[in-house]
Each structure stands twice: as C-alpha cells, then as structure tokens.
C-alpha cells in the first residue's frame, strides 16, 4: 500500500472550500455546523461574516439538532437565505439534520473535512446552490472565483473588464455575486478565471489565464458572433511584447532562472508555461495541491514538496510561503495561499492580460531583488 501519510498538509479541507464558495454570496448567511475549532480557520482566512453552531461535546452525545435549530432560527430572523455547512463529527453521528430547518428555507451542504480537499467542498457547495441554466439569460457566466484564491478579487475585475471589451455582459459570477442574482438563473456559457474551481454550470468556453486568452476569445467569437475581439487581442499582443522585452533585458545579464512551482493545478501549469515561454526557464519541479495532471504530480505534503525544491536548488519559487520558508536562498513570488511575504491590500489579478503581466513582473522583481542581494 502506498504511504499516504502526510507531513504538514498545505491545503484546506472540504468544509473550508464549501464555506469559501458560499461566502462569496454576501446576501447568503453561512452557518458552520461544528465546533469553534472548525470555525476559526475559515473565519480568519476569508475575513467575511460567518455563523457557527460552536458545538460542544454534550451536543454530540445528546444530538445536535436542537442546537442547529436554535442558530438557524436566530439567523433566519435577518430575513436572508441560509446555507448550513456540515463538519466531520455531525456528519458521522447520522442525524437527519434537515429536520432542524424544516420551517426555514435553507440549503444544506454536507462537506465534512474527511471527504476531501477544498475543491471537493467547493464542488459540493456549488452543486447545492447552482441555478438552472436558462437559454434566455443574457450574458456569460464567470467561474473560478473563490475567496480562498489570493487573486479572486483582481481576477473577477479583470475578467469582467475583458468581457466588457468584448461587448459581453456578465450573467452569474461563481462564486462572488449576490444570491439573488444567482437564483435568477445562469447563462448557457461560462468562462473561467481559475479552472481549479470549476462551477460545472453551462458550457465552458475556456480559461482567461493569459496564454489561453487567444483561443478562448476565438471560442467566444464563435458563440457570440457580434463580439468584437480586436481590442482584446491587440492588448494581449502588446502585453506579450512588453513581457518579452522585459525578460530579454533580464536575460542579457543573467542566466534563465531555474524555477519550481507548487500551487493549484491550474495556476501551477500556467506559471510553468509562462516561465518557460518568457524566461526560457528550466522548471524541473511542479507540484499541484488539488489534483495531478499531465506532468504535474499531486502533493499536499509540505515536507515532500520542500525536499524536492531543495534538491532542485531553484533561483525562483512560485508558490506559497510554505515553500519559501524552507528554501530562503531562492527568490519568491506567491501565487497560492498563504503568501506571508508581503502585505496585500490591492486587488491584483493572476487571470487575464493584467494577470499575465502581474506574474512576469512579480517574477522579474523577485529575481532582480535576489540578484541585488535584497
């Protein structure tokens, strides 16, 4: 049997993923049915209001339904819709929790931590709230927006900007929208800002990560014949020329950097391709935290990831400060949480044209600061 034991796991559980997805709808009250120990992590990470039943041991012994009913009833007095996310122990003791809110309209998401990772939880949450696709709904959906993503806000704004340049309106944003808009129904087509958080709603026309943009725009033009893509493609071309210019200048002085990447699969593949394309980099190590892909092994095991990084002796780490902390000789650019190397207040994107530029700019600055000994 393969050893699945893990050292210092780097990725959150399904409950956290479900809460992050649902918390993207600010007019939806999210209740975590679990202990304060389960509640604090998503509450501190997501920095949005969340409710909890703050379960005690006695309620596990005598049943949690009364406590859940008490909290649901109290939250229902706000008049807002409610989503209840289940955690490990209540999921194990086999109560019919839906009886706790039979009088109240509430969504129930069974996403205990042991059922998988954050992406699994996100999938279960979206499945629980997903609206029907309506052929009459105008616009296009955006998916891949998740509050766990360091770039969620910037990605949303950049994706909306690009769709605006294409003359397309946005139908539903998964998952950062009003719940009311979500309930109005989704449009038949979707584009993605981060394909590691797919909504599964509508037909996906592709990703808006930088290198995917020309192909995705082509697909959009095929579906929406009125789309004017000239402005977007011209901007994309200009950005690419600028990136080549800046990287070429760096490469006149320095060798192509050895880069290692550890992130969600979508961002990991994206970062690898960008570094190969613009820096001519050797990228010997790439790990995906959520699931493996072609040439990208899965690992959420920090010790395994960091051992591989140390062996590769990289010039640049693209990932989280979990990786940067144990190999301080390399330059670092954060694309996956946690990034404790910097204070981040602005809404930087990683998707779209600006997102491509943010990655290359961040990598260049990190590498040059390292060369200068900063």
């Amino acid at each position: 049997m393969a050893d699945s034991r893990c050292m210092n796991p780097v990725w959150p559980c399904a409950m956290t993923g479900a809460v992050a997805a649902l918390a993207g709808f600010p007019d939806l009250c999210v209740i975590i049915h679990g202990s304060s120990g389960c509640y604090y992590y998503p509450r501190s990470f997501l920095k949005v209001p969340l409710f909890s039943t703050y379960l005690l041991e006695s309620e596990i012994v005598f049943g949690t339904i009364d406590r859940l009913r008490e909290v649901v009833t109290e939250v229902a007095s706000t008049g807002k819709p409610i989503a209840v996310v289940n955690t490990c122990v209540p999921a194990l003791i086999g109560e019919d929790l839906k009886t706790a809110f039979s009088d109240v309209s509430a969504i129930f998401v069974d996403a205990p931590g042991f059922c998988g990772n954050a992406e699994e939880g996100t999938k279960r949450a979206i499945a629980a709230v997903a609206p029907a696709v309506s052929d009459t709904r105008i616009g296009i959906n955006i998916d891949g927006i998740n509050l766990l993503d360091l770039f969620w806000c910037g990605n949303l704004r950049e994706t909306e900007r690009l769709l605006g340049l294409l003359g397309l309106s946005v139908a539903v944003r998964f998952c950062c929208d009003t719940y009311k808009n979500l309930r109005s129904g989704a449009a038949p087509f979707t584009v993605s800002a981060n394909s590691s958080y797919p909504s599964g709603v509508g037909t996906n026309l592709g990703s808006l990560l930088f290198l995917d943009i020309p192909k995705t725009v082509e697909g959009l033009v095929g579906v929406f014949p009125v789309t004017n893509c000239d402005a977007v493609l011209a901007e994309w071309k200009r950005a690419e020329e600028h990136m080549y210019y800046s990287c070429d200048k760096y490469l006149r002085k320095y060798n192509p950097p050895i880069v290692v990447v550890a992130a969600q699969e979508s961002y990991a593949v994206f970062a690898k391709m960008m570094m190969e394309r613009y820096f001519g980099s050797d990228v010997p190590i790439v790990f995906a935290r959520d699931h493996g892909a072609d040439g990208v092994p899965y690992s959420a095991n920090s010790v395994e990831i960091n051992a591989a990084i140390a062996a590769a002796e990289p010039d640049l780490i693209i990932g989280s400060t979990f990786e940067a902390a144990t190999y301080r000789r390399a330059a670092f650019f954060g694309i996956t949480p946690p990034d404790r190397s910097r204070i981040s207040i602005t809404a930087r994107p990683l998707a779209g044209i600006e997102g491509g530029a943010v990655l290359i700019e961040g990598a260049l600055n990190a590498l040059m600061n390292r060369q200068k000994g900063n």
Partner: protein
Amino acid sequence: MSWRILPESIYESRMAGCALGGALSVACFIPGAVAVVHAPEGCVHQAFSMLHAMINDSDVWIVPEILVSSFGDREVIFGGEDCLSAALDRAAVESPDLIIVVTSCIPETIGDDCGAVCARHLYADRILYVPASGFLGGSAKDGENAVLTALATRSPVAKSVFGTVALIGEKNLEFEADLNYAEVERLLAKLGLRVTVRFCRNGNYATLMQLGSSQCFVLRDERVAAAGKVFGERFGRPVIPEFPRGLSGCFLFLCDVGKACNVPEEKITAAMESETAYQNAMLAKFAGLSGRSVFLGAEPFSGTCAVAREAITRLSMEERSDGFPIRLPFYLPIGTAGVEKMLSLWRGATNHG
C-alpha cells in the same frame, strides 16, 4: 454586520477553540520531537497554517513538522487504527526523541483505540499519547494542559538546583511570547535566578526532562493552572501562578519568586529598589502624557484595564468618559516592558490620533 447584532448565546466554552489546536501549540515547539496527529489532513492544515503565520510574524523561519494520519472516507467506514499505525511507522523512521500522538474528534467518535495502537508499537517507549479528541476533549486550553501534564509525568523527580526556575505554558502563538520571556528573565536576574527550562518552548526533550530539578515553577497565567497543580504535587515545588502583571505585578513577582527560591530577604529588597528606579526611568520617557485625559473603553483581555489604570495613576494622567479614546493592547501587558509598549501606543495615539 449581522453577526454583530445577533444575540448569539455564546458561552466561553463554545468559543474556546478545540483541544487539538491547543495541544499542537505546545507539541510543535519541542525540537527533536515529532507530532503525529490522527485526523484528516484539513485539521492539521489549520494548525500548520496558524504556526506558519506565527513563525512568520516572529521572523523565525523554522517550520515544525506535523505528521498526519490522513483520515479519510475509508477510515471513517473501516476504522482508522491502521492508518495511525502507519503514521507511527513513518514517524519512527527519523528516530525522533519523542513522538507525541494527538487525536482529533473523528477517531474519538468512531471509537478507534488509539492508546492500544500506541502501546503495541515498536517505538512505544518514546510515544507520548495525548487523547486530545478535538473539540470532544474540550477547548484549546484543555489541549495545552493535557500535553504539558503528559510530558511532566515523564520527567523524573530530582533534587532541586538552587537558583533555577522553570517557565510553564508560555503562549507559543502569542506575538509577544519572546518579549514576555525577556521581561521575566530580566526580573529573575535581579534575584540571581535563571531560567533553565521553558516548558515547552524550543527546548529539546532532554532539556524538558530536567523540569524536576527546578527550584520553582512560574506559570504563564491561569490558563495552565490545571497543569501547574499537577506539577506542584508531582515535584513538591512552589508554583507562581502567572507572569508579572504590569508595574506593581513586578514587585509582587520579585517577592513571590524570591521567597519560593529561598533568596535572602535583603536581596529581594535590593531587587525591588532596583526595579523601582528602572520603572521611574521608563515612566520619565512618557512624562509628556502627564495631565492628559484618556478613555479606556472596552477591556479586551481580563486584567488589562487594571494595568492601564495603574499606569494612568503613576503618570498623573486622568481617566474620564470624555477623555481621548485610546485602544488597550489585546494581551495583558507583562511587566515594565509590557507597560512601556502600551504607553508607546498611547503616546502615538494621543499625539497623532
């Protein structure tokens, strides 16, 4: 926002975190030991993230290693004892000084006999089993006390060594942990005492096992009182209940620790006189606050207002409801250094707020 207006009937016990997190906040600060957690990966990710954040804030780039048994769907159905056993095998490969096994709420719920798994393992003599049981084992405080107590029971009772003090239950996740330690060390030095064991903050297993030779135990605060009671009974040594609270707390601390360690009376008196001069010099730096009216507002941590009021009196300031609203530090200021930090915040706020 809505969560503020809701009359949520929250008791302290509901809000106090889970025992797993508390246990790891102690167990992860023993170099040479490995923490094995019988839980899903997500539980350990939360703890690991918390430690990472704290370590980053402290500018100490050392990452503790936590091995998780990776409890999943399969273990929920068939039981998780095999995966705990495999995790112990993995931990033993590195020949650690100690393996601290901490459990989450799930094995407790499904009835894994984790104690038996630990007892029959080849490495059993180096395994410390702490059935924290997540939130089913109580709050974070209970988890901290459980690890401290379990470790203390392995430490042999020994003859006390004059002039040695052990600190018990420092708050490893506290931003000011090392600043507070430095303040306590400064005060002890006035009495000719030294800290030989920090139980448990960055001391290896061999060092921790010297606990029994300390002349007295100083608890961080009442949070670890349960462990302190066990320590006092096991080793028959005096237990000082907390680090010094603010300015007057320094004198009380010097007096209590001095007596507990049989420091001569005249040396204690000299230490208190020295501290009086030290405090006066510190307060002189804030003479500009004299005569200012301030409003303290809500107390974020029990005892903080009392420390603040004492400083107000010493600086001839005034507390008034229409005074300048100042924010109290989140944690109780420890010793003279803690008050100095607080006064720096006040000065900044009253001058520029």
